[in-house]
């Protein structure tokens, strides 16, 4: 199996002062294989969000490297990095993922517009994604007319529709009740199995992490335990 993303001794420190410096991520080396369904778990402040942002090229590491399919994204910036994220990485955030003035469909379509996908293909893929996440018929609703769970499904659809190499989700279920949270995770798992899309998500929740096939435990910015299940 080949690694989609690998990091080598990646560090992200906040603050210049030795005394008060926070080592949010400290010398982390991991490899994520294609098709994985991996959870990053750990207490609050352990560095989960920071690591996900480093993996997705949202943040630049203090040192170390992050390679996506052999390309080091640690020192990309500006439009190059934007384009790289657009084409290779899907993001799902904890909340407020969607553009409120766009309908569900338009939210999904937008990223393909950035990619320059033509109109008929966009339409086809939007319809397909809506069906896959179980939102047929709700495409023209604005986010404020959708429930939290439905909004997260739109976010999943948006993340997948650009056909990225990996989807990074930072506590995607944190704002949902446990029933909806589990349903959302089951949907992600199903999509992972159908499409062989790679998923990495972070969570606090025991029930949610039990769905993952690999658990990366973090503590104080370091990897404490990396277990396959």
């Amino acid at each position, binding site marked *: 199996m080949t690694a989609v993303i690998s990091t080598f001794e990646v560090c992200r420190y906040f603050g210049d002062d030795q005394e008060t410096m926070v080592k949010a991520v400290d010398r982390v080396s991991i490899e994520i294989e294609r098709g994985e369904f991996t959870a990053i778990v750990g207490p609050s402040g352990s560095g989960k969000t920071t690591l996900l942002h480093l993996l997705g090229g949202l943040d630049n590491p203090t040192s170390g490297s992050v390679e996506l399919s052999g390309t080091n994204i640690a020192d990309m910036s*500006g439009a190059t990095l934007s384009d790289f994220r657009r084409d290779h990485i899907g993001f799902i955030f904890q909340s407020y993922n969607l*553009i*409120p003035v766009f309908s569900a469909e338009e939210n999904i379509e937008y990223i393909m517009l950035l990619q320059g996908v033509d109109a008929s293909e966009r339409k086809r893929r939007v319809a397909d994604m809506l069906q896959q996440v179980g939102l047929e018929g709700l495409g023209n609703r604005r986010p404020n007319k959708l429930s939290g769970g439905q909004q997260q499904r739109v976010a999943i659809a948006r993340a997948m529709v650009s056909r990225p190499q990996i989807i990074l989700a930072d506590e995607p279920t944190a704002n949902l009740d446990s029933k909806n949270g589990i349903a959302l995770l089951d949907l992600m798992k199903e999509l992972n199995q159908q499409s062989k899309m790679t998923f990495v998500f972070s969570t606090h929740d025991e029930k949610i992490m039990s769905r993952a096939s690999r658990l990366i435990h973090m503590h104080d910015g370091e990897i404490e335990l990396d277990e396959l299940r």
Partner: protein
Amino acid sequence: MLLLKLAFRNIFRQRRRSLLTALSLGGGYILCVFSFSLSEGSYNSAISFFILDHTGHIQIHQDDYLLRPKIHKTIDDPQGLSELLDANDEIISHTLRVFAPAIAYSDTDNAPARVIGVALERERSTSTLAVKISAGVYIDDTLDAEGYYSAMIGAGIANNLNIGLDDELILISQGADGSIANDIYIVRAIVGDRTSPDRATVFLPLIAAQEFLSMVDSVHEISILLQDDGAARSVATSLQEQLPELSVAPWQVVESTFYQSMQADKQGNVFFMGFIIFIVFIGVLNTVLMSVLERTREFGVLKAIGSRPFKIALMITCETSLLASLSLIAGLLVSVPFTAWFSAVGFELAEPMNIGGIVMSHMTGEMSLYVFGAPLLLIIFFAIIISIPAGIRAARISPTEAMRSH
């Protein structure tokens, strides 16, 4: 397309705030249009007033007669010149004049007078002299039974000398050859009233004035009326090339005091409008920055999923220009009919106003591309300028920071 849709919806997202911004933009625009219309309108009516009253669009003199009038600075071949001017398509008409100071006498009184000899028929089609006659008839250049020429006199002279129609008027002056000039004329018309600028003028037939002043058939001034109001400078330049030995001046030079004070006033006006627009835009800047700040998270998401920073900045410019355009459309809808009325009907001033030496009591506006276009461009320009700092700010939002802020 989606970008425009996004801009459109974002504007309608904060309805009240966008409405307030639009009101101040539209209001600023309307204010500018009215002010431009008023200033253009009043200057243009002042200009057409003196152009038709006596100045014409272009004047021709000998040498520096315009600055230092001397009786001997004469144009010596007016006939030849008249033929040239009559053949020019851009010229409606022209008239020939001579000037001299004189003392006017009646049986009982005397008064200083300004004698102007005019080519009567040409003058009628070039200036409003014929229209200004308040009593009597426009004269001709024939001698009466007793061998006297007719004269038209300002109402001030008539009053000072206590004379009226058909009375005798005696003029004394100095001829071009240094001789004493004096002659008798019969008053056939009174020009204007006792307050008009012509109140101390005596108008004579050109030939009578030339004889009176021993000027043979030379003249002091040729005043020209053009087809096109805007062509004074260009036609003056080409006439000057044809007439190198004479001085050709457009009205901007002839009425240079007026013209310069008008230019200064207009510049002040533009500056003042710029200032008002600037004030309006401080409010707009505030609104735009606020809307960027409020949407930090949204821009964070847009950037995270791969929108280029430039595209984010463009989005802000798009929104601001769109809002400005909508406000301008509303502003046009209000200002076009109002300005149309204002330029067609106008209003009476409670107190007559002095514009560069010309007293006006009725104001009309100007309806032109400049009046609507100049403030429009000014506002669009400012809208784009103002959106740049806000756009840069939005483009610089770091997704990681944005995701942490709630």
